[in-house]
């Protein structure tokens, strides 16, 4: 019995260590050409990694081994090693790589090119270019589905979203969004696609089964990025030109709250373990940690200059392994 209790304690100890700690946030600092790495246990910046020129987009593999960063000005993708937290490689790619995302199996890295209107598919382990897909004008935000069957990309200057089949890399459908769509986000159950339209200051909601536009939700000025709570009940949208975030009740598809957050809020991610929302404020060069339940601001973390954090920037911390 005594042994059993000790084992139980050990088990708990390991369980706690694994589940409640050890994640990092990788914030692209566009004006200081670097990535700030935030330890999400202590909320401290533990490292600033130099990358290419004017980094914007970011994607982290599930197991944290690789972090990919897009640098539209130097036209390259920086590859960061998750163990050493070092930039190990810069890959030249296209004319202006911006929005990036990984398929959920981490097999492919998808890179939207702002200038030549293509999405490039990179094998995430060999780092080789596999395919170039022509999409709409100035493609930006990308999201991928759970079944690794489709990805969605917002074509900012065409006011559309391209739906691309991952099996054959063909564009299956082009959806008409609002004005100047920049970011796309699938609801956690993948039943809905939310599209943030910068110019019309609203969010278009599509049903992913039939691609019908269900509704358009008015948000704050110049929405930039979207994240969902884990259960999908709420969506959080950053409004760049209003210094606020909008909170959307996804059941009723209504904007239920607007919250002052800081200047030029841009990238936004939900952190499952603490149920906090991390918001990147471009002008203030900080990351705000917001409690998603009581909506209190827990912390403001200073990062590099002009952070954007465009993409999924959270991943496991491998530096202690």
């Amino acid at each position, binding site marked *: 019995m005594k042994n059993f209790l000790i084992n139980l304690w050990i088990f708990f100890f390991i369980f706690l260590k694994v589940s409640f700690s050890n994640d990092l946030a990788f914030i692209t600092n566009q004006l200081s050409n670097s990535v700030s790495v935030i330890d999400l246990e202590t909320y401290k910046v533990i490292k600033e990694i130099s990358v290419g020129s004017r980094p*914007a987009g970011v994607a982290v593999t599930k197991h944290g081994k690789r972090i990919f960063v897009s640098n539209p000005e130097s036209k390259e993708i920086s590859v960061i090693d998750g163990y050493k937290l070092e930039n190990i490689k810069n890959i030249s790619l296209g004319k202006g790589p*911006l929005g990036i995302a990984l398929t959920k199996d981490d097999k492919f890295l998808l890179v939207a090119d702002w200038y030549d209107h293509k999405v490039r598919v990179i094998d995430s382990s060999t780092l080789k270019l596999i395919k170039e897909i022509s999409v709409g004008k100035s493609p930006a935000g990308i999201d991928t589905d759970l079944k690794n069957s489709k990805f969605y990309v917002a074509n900012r*200057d065409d006011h559309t979203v391209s739906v691309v089949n991952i099996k054959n890399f063909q564009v299956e459908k082009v959806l008409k969004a609002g004005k100047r769509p920049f970011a796309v986000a699938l609801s956690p159950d993948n039943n809905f696609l939310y599209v943030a339209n910068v110019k019309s200051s609203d969010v278009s909601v599509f049903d992913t089964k039939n691609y019908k536009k269900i509704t358009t939700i008015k948000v704050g000025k110049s929405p930039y990025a979207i994240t969902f709570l884990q259960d999908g009940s709420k969506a959080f949208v950053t409004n760049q030109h209003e210094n606020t975030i909008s909170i959307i009740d996804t059941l009723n598809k209504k904007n239920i709250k607007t919250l002052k957050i800081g200047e030029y809020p841009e990238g936004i991610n939900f952190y499952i373990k603490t149920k906090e929302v991390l918001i990147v404020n471009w002008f203030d060069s900080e990351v705000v940690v917001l409690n998603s339940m009581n909506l209190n601001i827990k912390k403001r973390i200073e990062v590099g200059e002009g952070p954007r954090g465009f993409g999924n920037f959270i991943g496991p911390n491998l530096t202690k392994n």
Partner: protein
Amino acid sequence: MKYLPGIIFLIVSFFNLTITDVFSHGPTRQKLKESITINAKPEDVWNLIKDFGKIDIWHPSISKVESDGKTRTIYYSPRKNTAIKQKLENYSDEKMMYKTSITEVDIKFFPVNTYTANISVKGNEDGTSTVLWKAAFYRAYVNNDPPPELNEAAAIKAVKEFFQSGLNNLKKKLEN
């Protein structure tokens, strides 16, 4: 007549250069903050700058303003009196701040794109005031590999000069 294709080319390139789609921009937004401490009460500083339509009473480089209260066209003397059309985005008498955007500008003379700026006055403990003028904007060139006159540095230089000359003169006016 044999020059026609050349003339058409010139006309087309001219329009491409100066009348760009105002909603398109490159992937990197620029940021600029300029501030000045003035030996005057914040109310007095605000009183001088609060009239959106009369920026020429304190900014030395503006030769003329035309305004209907919601928009204004300023004629900026250091750059060939170029007309810069602006819109009042936000105004707070209580917070002593206002925010503007540029709606029309000739990028040959003022090479910025998608520009917004915020000017505010704050009182300090020692009785002085600090005026903070900050802006967010893109370079004028919307494509990659900009020529030097339309790159990031050119955009930053234009806005910086505009802010600095204004703030320096504001200080001079209030302290004399």
